[in-house]
């Protein structure tokens, strides 16, 4: 991910896989439901607990009030003291200790209401809940002052305690377990659902249109099965289409040979030697085009077997024939370079490259060197070279880099394509680069043992 990518992009990158997305959605969904239900449950629970607490407090207070009422005034303080315990501390006095208002006023007012509801007898004579007069700033310390029938007061100081027990660990644990479960379920689910998709991707990547298609298995959920069937059908259709086109092109190329043969024979009857020569040249060019087209369509489907071949002898034949035809061609380097290969294919491939160099670069300098189990052949010319951005196109079929180039140079732009295919078929590589001193440099590297190398 690039630095400074917007957060949206970062999230998208993180959620790139189907598994990540599914985990994300399941986690969010189940997590939300889990937390809402947890909250609702706790809320109900705490309400109930509050209610129970209020009732118990009311009962306690009522008990205190009754007990203190029964005693003579002299013993009242002692009884009140005896009854104190827990959060409650009771004192008997002539006046009320509580004063309404103060920091926790709302809360205490509510408590008073609830206590009156729980035990109406509590409020019969008067009930004040409020801050401690002596310590009015403490919101946790409240005084409940109950008026006794004789006008005296029973003051109970109350330490406000949280009704909610601290149980954060339980929530954290259940939430974590839930998340883990969601992740586990998502991973299994996604694996199960996407395995066929991975097979599709592999089949689509391998599908070349020229080799028989590899069908994907029609299994999995209904939608995936339907997709597999459609995918296989599409593969078959594309393959048939390519096959049909290829065969049609091959048939046309092939059938053109008969009329060209006739033309060649007819041309022999032309008296004018210049005209006869020109027609022969044209026919030769047509023939080369057909030949290249058929070679391209045949691709790697060759009947030739791999055999030990001396590449230098092959190159010497090509260079010799070309220099006999008047081209400037040199061959340097090893006197022998043996590799496992197809002699005629290699001859065609190197013939195409060297002829190209002569045709577009004016000359060809061929050099052979052996490096371990690799043979390197470089073919350099002194032409304009090929711009880096055009190099891929130069290797593509039916591309001629300069449309303006004189048609007399011939060819369909298949030469380098065929050469590259043949080199690849031998486990080798073909690279184009420009020489520093100008001109194109074609570098071919071939393993001496293509079978072992592949």
């Amino acid at each position: 991910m690039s630095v400074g990518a917007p957060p949206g992009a970062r999230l998208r990158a993180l959620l790139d896989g189907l598994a990540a997305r599914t985990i994300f959605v399941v986690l969010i969904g189940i997590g939300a439901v889990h937390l809402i239900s947890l909250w609702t449950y706790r809320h109900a629970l705490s309400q109930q607990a509050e209610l129970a607490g209020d009732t118990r407090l009311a009962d306690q207070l009522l008990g205190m009030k009754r007990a203190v009422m029964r005693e003579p005034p002299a013993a009242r303080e002692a009884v009140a003291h005896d009854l104190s315990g827990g959060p409650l501390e009771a004192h008997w006095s002539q006046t009320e200790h509580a004063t309404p208002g103060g920091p926790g006023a709302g809360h205490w007012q509510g408590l008073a209401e609830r206590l009156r509801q729980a035990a109406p007898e509590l409020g019969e004579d008067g009930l004040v809940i409020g801050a401690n007069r002596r310590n009015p700033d403490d919101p946790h310390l409240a005084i409940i002052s109950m008026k006794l029938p004789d006008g005296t007061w029973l003051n109970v100081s109350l330490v406000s305690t949280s009704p909610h027990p601290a149980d954060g660990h339980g929530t954290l644990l259940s939430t974590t377990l839930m998340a883990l479960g969601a992740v586990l379920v998502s991973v299994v689910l996604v694996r199960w659902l996407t395995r066929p998709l991975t097979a599709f991707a592999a089949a689509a990547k391998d599908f070349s249109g020229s080799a028989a298609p590899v069908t994907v298995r029609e299994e999995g959920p209904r939608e995936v099965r339907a997709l597999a069937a459609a995918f296989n059908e599409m593969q078959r259709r594309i393959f048939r289409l390519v096959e049909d086109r290829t065969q049609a092109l091959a048939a046309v190329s092939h059938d053109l040979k008969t009329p060209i043969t006739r033309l060649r024979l007819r041309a022999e009857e032309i008296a004018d030697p210049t005209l006869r020569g020109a027609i022969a040249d044209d026919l030769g060019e047509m023939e080369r085009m057909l030949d290249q087209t058929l070679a391209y369509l045949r691709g790697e489907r060759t009947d030739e077997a791999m055999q030990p071949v001396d590449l230098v002898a092959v190159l010497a034949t090509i260079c010799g024939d070309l220099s006999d035809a008047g081209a400037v061609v040199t061959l340097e380097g090893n006197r022998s370079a043996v590799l496992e290969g197809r002699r005629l294919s290699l001859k065609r491939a190197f013939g195409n490259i060297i002829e190209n160099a002569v045709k577009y670069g004016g000359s060809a300098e061929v050099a052979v060197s052996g490096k371990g189990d690799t043979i390197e052949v470089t073919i350099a010319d002194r032409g304009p070279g090929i711009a880096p951005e055009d190099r891929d196109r130069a290797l593509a079929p039916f591309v001629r880099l300069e449309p303006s180039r004189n048609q007399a140079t011939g060819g369909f732009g298949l030469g380098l394509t065929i050469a590259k295919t043949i080199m690849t078929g031998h486990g080798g590589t073909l690279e184009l680069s420009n020489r520093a001193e100008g001109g194109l440099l074609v570098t071919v590297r071939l393993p001496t043992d293509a079978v072992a190398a592949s």
Partner: protein
Amino acid sequence: MPDGSPVPSDRSMAKILVVDDDSEILGLVARFLRSNAFEVLTARNGAEMAASLQQARIDLIVLDLMLPGANGLDLCRNLRRTSAVPVIMLTAKGDEIDRIIGLEVGADDYLAKPFNPRELLARISAVLRRTQAHAPDTAAGTQRLVRFAGWRLDTTKRELTDPRGVIVDLSTGEYDLLIAFLDAPHRILSRDFLMDATRARTQEAFDRSIDVQISRLRRKIEVGQEMIKTVRGAGYMFTPDVTRGPA
């Protein structure tokens, strides 16, 4: 190229049977060969071919591979059972495999359509010359493997193999030159003879001196051992022993 190259006497009035189902090509080839001083018979299929063979003594057959009914391969195979008449196979298929099959069923040479008429002429001359030189002991289809100094030349596949078993590619000119040497080992061959032998196949006017061809062939086959000896003022001599055998 000059019109009507001089016709060597050894092939004059040789009788050629051309078999092709395309009557246009049949007529054109016949006319072309007649204009080059051959006697020509034509046949459009196997039956007509058989009839012609009974009527006349044929010196060479130019046979199209793709014929209706029995194809050229079958015709050639059947022919070989009874006759050693040389055959040049014509086909529209340029595949190497067709050439090899064609030569394996007993054809003496092979030419892919669209062929250059002069190339056909050259091949006819070469085959006639070769079969006349070796008849009858090297009947076509039997003596296809030539061995010398550990090397092996398969004339069916036109494949030269060195003592290590590595295929060494030859140009057409080099191949023809080697064939000429293998046909006459230990004999001094003049430049003119060798020039004629290599020119028979390649239709292009050969400006390269025969010495260049020889030096190229030497570079390919002479690895630490001299095979082609220069005889000053006379020509060249192939020194290794040559043996022939079936493929």
